[in-house]
């Protein structure tokens, strides 16, 4: 089959990690998917959900500790080269196509939070069953 003959219709991502280096691929993959006319579903859970607490997207600078020696250099390079923040990329992807951002109900309950404690980019609160049912309609699901 030639590339492009048949496109998957949906990209679903479980965003588990809350470090900036993992939030970037979530935002970039979402951008690429909407560019190719796909719908995107993000399921935010655990640290990934923490990264979407009100105020966090603007101030979170956490990076994977396994790359502690590389992270400051990458942060510096991104600043120098004016790379937009992962959050701005995600906002743009959302403007451009269908990007649904779901908060994991279980994590919210665990943290004693409600939807209003989350950044407005989050669309709704869903259970894992609903997310998996939705993801089943698409061909790609990633865990980040």
């Amino acid at each position, binding site marked *: 089959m030639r*590339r*492009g003959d048949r*496109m998957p219709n949906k990209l679903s991502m479980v965003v588990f990690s809350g470090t900036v280096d993992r939030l970037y691929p979530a935002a*970039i993959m979402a*951008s*690429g998917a909407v*560019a*190719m*006319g796909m719908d995107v579903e993000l399921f935010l859970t655990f640290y990934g959900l923490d990264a979407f607490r009100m105020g966090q997207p603007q101030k979170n600078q956490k990076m994977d500790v396994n790359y502690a020696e590389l992270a400051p250099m990458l942060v510096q390079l991104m600043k120098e*080269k*004016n*790379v*937009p923040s992962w959050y701005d990329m995600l906002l*743009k992807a959302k403007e*451009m196509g269908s990007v649904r951002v779901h908060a994991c109900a279980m994590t919210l309950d665990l943290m004693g939070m409600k939807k209003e404690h989350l950044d407005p980019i989050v669309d709704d609160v869903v259970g894992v069953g609903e997310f998996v049912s939705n993801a089943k309609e698409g061909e790609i699901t990633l865990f980040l």
Partner: protein
Amino acid sequence: MVSAADQKIVLDARGSFCPGPLMELIRGIRQAKVGEVVEVWSSDQGSRTDIPFWVQKSGHGLVGVYEEAGYARFVVKKLR
């Protein structure tokens, strides 16, 4: 930026990283009228494959890809 001479929309996305230039192009194509030409400048390597792929998939016309010093110009005609 629209130059009156040839009604071409030129988007300078040099310095923007993948998928920035593609996103700029899509936005430009959306704003353009059918038959208009949109040109995007990109220094991002991913654009070399991403942009022609998107143009083909979305049913527009790739007029040409022109290599310049440190970047490429992608000229796209809006067909639908």
